[in-house]
């Protein structure tokens, strides 16, 4: 049984990012686009944690700086989701749609 390499994790992370990216480009529902953004953020987190485990520090433990960065990313993403969804709700109240092709003018 061969053991896992760093590239396995980076490939998984890259494929997840590609999926999220394709979703942002293809989907027209603004909430789904937002979910795909979350997928992309999580893909970045996965490669950070994989590098953290791969690059051991002097004490033989994973490099925890990367995990602190992941912690910050998760916090900022939570704040971003709250604000983004509030904007979507305000937008829906004004226009009664979440379809991006129906939203073509900046000013209401």
């Amino acid at each position: 049984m061969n053991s896992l390499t760093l590239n396995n994790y980076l490939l998984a992370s890259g494929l997840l990012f590609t999926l999220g990216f394709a979703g942002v480009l293809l989907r027209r529902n603004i909430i789904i686009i937002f979910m795909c953004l979350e997928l992309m953020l999580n893909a970045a987190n996965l490669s950070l944690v994989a590098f953290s485990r791969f690059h051991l520090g002097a004490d033989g433990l994973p490099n925890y700086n990367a995990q602190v960065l992941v912690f910050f990313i998760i916090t900022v993403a939570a704040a971003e989701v709250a604000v983004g969804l509030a904007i979507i709700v305000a937008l829906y109240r004004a226009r009664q749609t979440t379809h991006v092709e129906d939203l073509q003018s900046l000013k209401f």
Partner: protein
Amino acid sequence: MSPVLFWLFTAMMLGFGVSVVLNRDPVASALSLVGSFLCLAALFVGLDAFFIGVIQVLVYAGAVMVLFLFIIMLLDLRAEKRRNLNRLAIVGGALVSGGFGMALLRVLDGFSAGHRAFPALSAKIDDVRSVGSILFRSYNLPFQVTGVLLLVATVGVVVLSKRELK
């Protein structure tokens, strides 16, 4: 982490991801996203990042996804009706994503360190203590700025949710 578990969780994570992108019903997409995040948390645990795995389940699969589902219910979104597909968007999306995937494979192939296996740990993992000590010692200022950011986000959400935006 045993390779079997890694490939199982990776396949599930990507499968749920595909289902997020392809589902027409926003509720089904949101629930698939929960599944994808749970599999990702399992991958984090497999990388000995237990704290991050728990945070992933609590914050993402818990709080953030409940928020998503709540908003979907609030807006009462139905499954999208089949609209005329935008050919240009599909071709462009496939081209850009395919190009990104090819570039990824090329970069990973040339990344020699990535072909090595993960080194074994030589000490006992105590990751909550380690992350906490780095967070409060080396990253104290960013940590407090994050607190301010959360406050600003809360105030912003309250302002945005008011009936009259003046």
